[in-house]
């Protein structure tokens, strides 16, 4: 309803950017595939893709439980057209410096609108059963549902005020 906040999960992760049956020969190939989906869905200009590969060389974006979150360096931000995510699943796994990655969540962002989804992702990955369910999700709807924060779980909260709005004004 309120338009003040950044786009919700469904706008950040469009169905076309959820690809559940990908294959990649290796880490670089998987990152390029993420970049290509972000380009194809209009989130970034093509220059974003090499910046994703560059970022991976400095610090791996592997975050655990078979999930990596490739994104660009600071320099790559100029190529972002709209904040967006993509979700690529590699059922056969991709070797990621010795780890096996099944899910790549590519990120393109200049704002903070995607942080709710990342916070939800962190919660999922800290729970091995939910992490397995995310790796095995076979429909875009399921993926989106899992990554959408529950309303009561909203990490940003309604405001910064000290007092809860129990019975604020009369």
């Amino acid at each position, binding site marked *: 309803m309120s338009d003040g906040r950044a786009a919700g999960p469904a706008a950040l992760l469009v169905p076309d950017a959820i690809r559940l049956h990908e294959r990649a020969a290796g880490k670089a190939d998987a990152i390029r595939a993420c970049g290509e989906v972000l380009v194809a869905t209009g989130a970034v200009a093509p220059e974003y893709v090499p910046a994703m590969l560059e*970022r991976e060389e*400095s*610090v791996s*974006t592997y*975050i*655990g*439980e078979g999930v990596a*979150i*490739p*994104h*660009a*360096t*600071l320099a*790559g*931000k100029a190529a972002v057209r709209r904040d967006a995510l993509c979700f690529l699943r590699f059922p056969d796994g991709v070797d990621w410096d010795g780890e096996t990655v099944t899910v790549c969540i590519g*990120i*393109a*962002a*200049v704002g*903070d609108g*995607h*942080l*709710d989804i*990342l*916070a939800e*992702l*962190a*919660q999922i*990955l*800290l729970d091995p059963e939910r992490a397995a369910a995310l790796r095995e999700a076979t429909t875009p709807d399921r993926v989106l549902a899992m990554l959408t924060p529950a309303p009561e779980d909203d*990490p940003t909260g309604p405001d910064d005020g000290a007092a809860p709005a129990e019975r604020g004004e009369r």
Partner: protein
Amino acid sequence: MTTIDGANVRKLVIACDAGMGSSAMLAGTVRKQLAAKGVTVEHTPVAQIPADADLVLTHAGLADRARGVAGDIPVVPFQLFLGDPAVTKVVAAIQQGTTVDV
């Protein structure tokens, strides 16, 4: 080795390269954990670590760059974006107001 007094940490910064991915995710998790203590948790690019930070967490691969920017502010490196023992120790010290050696 530096000793950090968790009771004195009011602003914790998680630094990474672009501030859009892994550090942002960690910041979201830590922010939730420290919300009750009123600690400000920010994520910034390494080059933009604010001077009023009390403590900086950063990936080990970026620690040297972070120290160059942070000056006297303690920098705690970590390896894992989820469940890293160094991060867990720091968060516990802040939650409990105890000291931690880093």
